[in-house]
């Protein structure tokens, strides 16, 4: 059961990683890279490391995603 969940989450994070690299729209790519962190935090939780999962969820998928969006916004302003 544990292995099945881990495989599903692993495949999902691989797919979102692929989307993050190859999607044309940068905003979708940023959200997909945040999703990789979210799946990683679930895997940490399954591996009995709740403290690492907390850090990964809040920093990896929260703060980093927002910082990427700010940078994207800045680049768009410059290009206009």
């Amino acid at each position, binding site marked *: 059961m544990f292995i099945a969940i881990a495989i599903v989450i692993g495949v999902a994070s691989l797919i979102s990683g692929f989307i993050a690299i190859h999607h044309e729209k940068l905003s979708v790519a940023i959200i997909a890279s945040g999703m990789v962190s979210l799946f990683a935090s679930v895997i940490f939780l399954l591996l009995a490391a709740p403290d690492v999962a*907390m850090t990964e969820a809040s920093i990896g998928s929260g703060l980093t995603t*927002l910082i990427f969006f*700010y940078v994207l916004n800045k680049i768009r302003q*410059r290009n206009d």
Partner: protein
Amino acid sequence: MIKKILIIGLLAGVGLIFFDLFNAYQGSEVLGKTGRYYAENGADEVGAANLVTAVIVTYRGLDTLGEVTILFLTAAIISFVLKFRREDFIPNRPVRITSELLDSASQVIVPVIFMVGIYIFINGHLTPGGGFQGGAVIASGVLLMIMANPNFGISHKVIAKVESISGIAFVLIGIMGIFLAGGFLDNRLLGLGNLGELFSAGVIPIIYTFIGLKVGAELSNILGTISHAQNEKN
């Protein structure tokens, strides 16, 4: 063509190294020497129910001090790099109207997020998580506030005071350990108390509260600075 072959060759080489590591890996049923020491003596010596905290704050407390310093440096460098002149600054930049959902949710959820963050670092010696996790959770509360109101400014005076007071207090508690207990960052300044109670494990809850405030202030400051930099004229 040559480039592609080189890339594939490199990937195959890295894959081979990792396959070798994977093949040679044997999970061990017993703890290593250091781990066994922590597991056997941690509860008696430190009095923390959460052994990870015992290692992070007491046995490897100096490393934690280094990590906090690195985080402080990062926040300082970001503030330094993103500095700009006052005339380049638009006080209230036009922003898209925040959706009703985000606006109402931020007012309801932000206090709860702050409370969860404070809970995590105050109970660092009992439950999973600690200063860094609690600080990150508090910063994500600030993140929600910034998202709901993009022109929301963070008071740098408050951040600077919280940050420096908690940093100084952390080092002072560490130095007091040299004179009053066994060494730098020794947690036996106060009594160890009963294992599993909130007021136990010596000064670990106090140190973790300061670490949590410091990390929360630093991460919020990074977010605030980056959000502020959006107001710069091009």
